[in-house]
């Protein structure tokens, strides 16, 4: 069985949550595996991140280089290619960094690439059988990947539950000298932090969240009226921001805001994992969608198959009616 590596994303000395998840994914590929954590970086941050993954990995390989202080995917790819043995399986979290690194890494390692894996179905001969999703999560697929010359596998964040593990006396192997000088055709300049919006959707008890089902810019008012009546705020999924109907500060998801309301009304939102990744603290999730097969119904607490353009105005009227009775 090929050796399994897990590339660990870390920031300011803190290992990403995916570190322990990748260890769990490695064990699902091969229960006998002793996966090796791969960390690149520089200085105290690298040392701190290295200590942080000791609970999940018995062996850790590090590449320390000043050029790797900021995670530039091209430089990291060039350094990994020098140290990862041919035929290995390399696991990487499927987020913005992994999307940048993994496809090119597979080419340079001459290994098979399979992306955004959410489960491992097992090994059959020289094939690794995995589960992934297509069409925004509307359907899943079993996929067979020939791993006879190794593989680069990106793993969906949150899909694998970390294993219970006690800290071990991890062996740390410094691979820095195998790498040499590094240059890239892409150079990091700065990070621009998202502007705060007019409404802070991260601090709301109730969110009326709209997706593609709102259909037109004019219809956004339907959600705004409901939110106003409820004393809630309007948030949204990616297509609404892409269409410029609401600002980026209203977007819930891995590339938007992480919210933790008590109630989340998902209106015309299909429920892609990137969107659901922005929901924390287990809100009470009420989903309204025309499509009875929308993935959102699998994770919602309560679901209603209906047209939001008709349902939401009736809900708004009901709230107003109730309030006017209460005021009397």
């Amino acid at each position: 069985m090929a050796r399994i590596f897990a590339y660990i994303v870390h920031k300011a000395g803190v290992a990403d949550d995916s570190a322990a998840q990748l260890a769990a994914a490695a064990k699902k590929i091969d229960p006998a595996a002793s996966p090796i954590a791969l960390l690149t970086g520089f200085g105290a941050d690298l040392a701190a991140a290295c200590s942080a993954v000791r609970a999940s990995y018995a062996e850790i390989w590090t590449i320390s280089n000043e050029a790797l202080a900021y995670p530039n995917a091209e430089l990291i790819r060039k350094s990994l290619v020098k140290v990862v043995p041919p035929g290995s399986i390399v696991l990487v979290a499927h987020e913005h960094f992994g999307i940048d690194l993994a496809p090119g890494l597979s080419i340079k390692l001459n290994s098979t690439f399979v992306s955004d894996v959410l489960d491992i179905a097992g090994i059959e001969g020289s094939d690794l059988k995995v589960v992934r999703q297509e069409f925004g999560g509307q359907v899943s697929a079993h996929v067979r990947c020939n791993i006879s010359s190794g593989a680069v596998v990106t793993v969906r964040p949150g899909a694998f539950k970390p294993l219970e593990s006690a800290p071990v006396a991890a062996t740390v192997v410094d691979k820095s000298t195998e790498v040499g000088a590094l240059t890239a055709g892409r150079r990091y300049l700065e990070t621009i932090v998202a502007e705060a919006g007019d409404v802070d959707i991260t601090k709301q008890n109730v969110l009326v969240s709209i997706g593609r089902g709102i259909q037109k810019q004019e219809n956004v008012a339907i959600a705004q009226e409901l939110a106003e009546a409820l004393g809630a705020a309007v948030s949204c999924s990616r297509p609404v921001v892409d269409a410029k109907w609401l600002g980026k500060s209203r977007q819930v998801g891995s590339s938007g805001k992480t919210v933790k309301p008590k109630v989340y009304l998902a209106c015309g939102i299909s429920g892609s994992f990137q969107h659901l990744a922005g929901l924390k603290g287990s809100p009470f999730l009420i989903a309204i969608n025309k499509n009875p097969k929308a993935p959102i119904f699998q994770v919602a607490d309560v679901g209603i198959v209906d047209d939001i353009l008709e349902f939401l105005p009736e809900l708004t009227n009901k709230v107003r009616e109730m309030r006017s009775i209460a005021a009397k």
Partner: protein
Amino acid sequence: MEILVCARRVPDTSENEIELNSAGNDIERDELVYSINEPDNYAVEEALQIAARIGGNVTVVTVGSEDDEEILRREMAMGANQGVLITDEAFNGSDARGIATILQGFVRKGNYDLILTGVQAEDGGAQVGGMLAAMLDYPFASLVNSIEVLEGRKLKVSREIEGGNKEMSEIDLPCVLSIQTGINEPRYVGMRGIRAVASVPIPTFGASDLGVDPGAVGEAAAKVKRVDYFILEFGKGAEMLKGSREENVDKVLELVAAKGGLK
């Protein structure tokens, strides 16, 4: 600037409910509405805007069959100078690496400064752009949501990272960028525009034209193969409210008040 956009025709998820077929081994493909992969359309719009700012030529290429010509014409109606269809029986069943290999053959025949792809297609893989860049030894950036052309054959690009933050980088040309949706507002294409390009010839290229080894692409060379489709039950499943609309409205209001409170 010579700009190449790699595009693909896919079932349109905003027009279709994707369902399993009766045998349960594939999606129901009858009567699917196809359109250009949405991120690819943003990539074409971005290419057109760059060409309008600094001058240039925009070519849209797809690997597929005659059916895929419709998206090339659509993008030509948007303003792309040229559409190219890459088609060959030997390409059928290619995995993402096969598609990247075919595109690499095409890129090497031209003289492109900038190659754009959409961030991902219907399979959600985000694979081809990064593979193509590595095959060409070009720099690559994924999830790009702004592009500024700098002096000295360089671009300043931003990538969409967590929390709506932007990672700014400088990248040398030639390079490959995968374009995120929302980077611009793709222009509307009317029927009249599509009719105007209906008879423009679309050049086609096959394996031998591109110097692509048929043994390195297609189904036989594919190391990644989909076995089947199925519906994954990943949550506990919602309690579905089956009442009348009025009853459902009452229930939702009751739940919102109880679980979240009304302000």
